[in-house]
């Protein structure tokens, strides 16, 4: 798309590219603005960029600086040290929490993508009319309150919740099943359910793009449906699978609501620990350090994942 736009802009008659512009040395800002497209573009963008800078870049820099400070009673000791990072590296609780967070979101990601793939496949290949209706139906719950959807799962999985009380009134079990709520499984189920739309959309887009004649060619050349799927459809939809994995894994590692409502002590994740540092424990520098460490881990895993999938794709091709 960007290339197409570039071409469009370059050849449009009313906006000659800057290189071919007649150089008028009036020195007036208005003329400069009128002539220089880049400048006008950035000027138009400037309010948006200003908000994003105030909201993202500056806070991140301050968060980074804060992570090198330490707490002194109710104040900060502003000498830069690696104390917090050393603590994160040496005390096992931090490593365990990080590993658990990454594990939970990893499992949730794989579950979501695996469960959503057939659905996206169905809409892309088997729905002929009202495709848009199906897509809206699938993505609609995603736009409703995340808090309420997680809360709904608490109602379902609770000790006296929907599943337990239904099973008891049916006479299938005597006492409520305790493992349903406050466990890693509860967190994984809820995350997989809540983030389904993030998997469906990229999967659908990549499946929809596949040239159907390739599938017919595979069939004509003697591939059965299974062989065709693994040799043509799946490899061609890999970009969608990769995008879906990223879109779910990265935000869920830092999730707060789901583990807080459904995790219990066993399902607590790094997001809850960060909140505790900024809340009850009141050790902001430590919270900042944990946020930075989480970001670094996410980046590292994302890079490794990209590298591995790229290598795998090269081998297939």
């Amino acid at each position, binding site marked *: 798309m960007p290339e197409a736009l570039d071409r469009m802009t370059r050849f*449009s008659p009313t906006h000659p590219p800057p290189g071919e512009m007649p150089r008028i040395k009036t020195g007036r800002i208005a003329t400069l603005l009128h002539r220089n497209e880049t400048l006008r573009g950035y000027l138009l963008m400037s309010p948006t960029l200003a908000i994003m800078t105030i909201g993202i870049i500056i806070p991140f820099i301050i968060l980074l600086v804060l992570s090198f400070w330490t707490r002194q009673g109710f104040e900060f000791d502003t000498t830069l040290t690696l104390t917090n990072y050393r603590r994160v590296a040496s005390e096992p609780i931090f490593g365990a929490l990080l590993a658990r967070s990454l594990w939970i979101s990893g499992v949730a990601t794989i579950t979501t993508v695996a469960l959503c793939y057939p*659905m996206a496949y169905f809409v892309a290949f088997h729905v002929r009319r009202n495709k848009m209706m199906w897509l809206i139906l699938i993505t609609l719950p995603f736009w409703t309150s995340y808090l309420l959807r997680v809360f709904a799962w608490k109602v379902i999985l609770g000790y006296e919740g*929907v599943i337990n009380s239904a099973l008891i009134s049916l006479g299938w079990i005597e006492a409520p099943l305790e493992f349903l709520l406050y466990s890693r499984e509860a967190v994984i189920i809820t995350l997989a359910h809540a983030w389904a739309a993030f998997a469906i959309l990229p999967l659908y887009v990549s499946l929809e793009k596949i040239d159907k004649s390739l599938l017919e060619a595979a069939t004509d050349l003697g591939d059965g449906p299974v062989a065709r799927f693994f040799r043509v459809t799946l490899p061609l939809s890999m970009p969608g699978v990769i995008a879906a994995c990223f879109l779910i894994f990265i935000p869920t590692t830092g999730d707060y609501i789901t583990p807080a409502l459904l995790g219990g002590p066993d399902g607590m994740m790094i997001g809850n620990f960060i909140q505790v540092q900024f809340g009850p424990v009141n050790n902001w520098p430590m919270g900042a350090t944990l946020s930075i460490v989480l970001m670094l881990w996410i980046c590292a895993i994302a890079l490794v994942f990209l590298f591995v999938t790229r290598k795998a794709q090269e081998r297939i091709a």
Partner: protein
Amino acid sequence: MKATSHLQRPNRSLQVYAAVFLVVLYLPVLLIPLFAFNDSIYVRFPLRGFTTQWFVELWNRQPAWNAFWNSIRVGLTVAVISTVLGIVAAKAITRYRMPGRTALVTFIMMPLVIPGIIFGVALLVLLSRMGVPLSLYTVTLGHLIVCLPFAVATLLPRFEGFDRSMEEASADLGENGWWTFWRVTFPMVFPGVVASLLLTFTISFDEFIMAFFLTGTDPTLPIYIWSQLRFPQQFPSILALASLVLFFSIPLIFVAIWVGRLGVSQSSEGTAES
């Protein structure tokens, strides 16, 4: 899968899977209104009978009303500002030769994929270092960061999709840039604008994690709901409140996606690229 099945043939097992998928997707959300009308303080089967008492109780609860109006105010402000900024950004991105355009779009889309808690604490640290007291204004700032990517993702395909020669024709016929925008560009991107307003309002109205860190003494509705979850005896009226939120937000979202339906598939591509 049978060996004889062909591309065009309907796949029975896949149809069943799709039906089950949709049921499971909607079931949790539908349970909330079911129990909101149940005549029992406990959220469990068997159902006891129909009642509207939880809604009546909710109606008489002043803090819930305050939180509701706070959320409406923040939501409207965020929707208008982020949509205006989205229009401006989308126009700049599509109409001018800007070096670093891809990097810019990636930058704007960043909040979509970074854990919200990190943005929340980062903004909290900035505001407290600057000595800004937490209030609905700080929540609004936080929500702007969350909503801007959605506004841009909804509007960008609209600006990319329409014929530029219309704008040029308007310019040739003597309209200046300002009137060209209002009389040609704006009507053509209008569906995207409506979609963006509705989406950003709903996102802000439902947003929890930013508000959790940035709220002062005035809670937004999700923060109020969160504070009530600790008390089991409040469960039924919270279920009533949740049903109302879902009842009003689902049609809003439906209209938003329907009106800006070009934006749906495009925006997912946009995020996939970033």
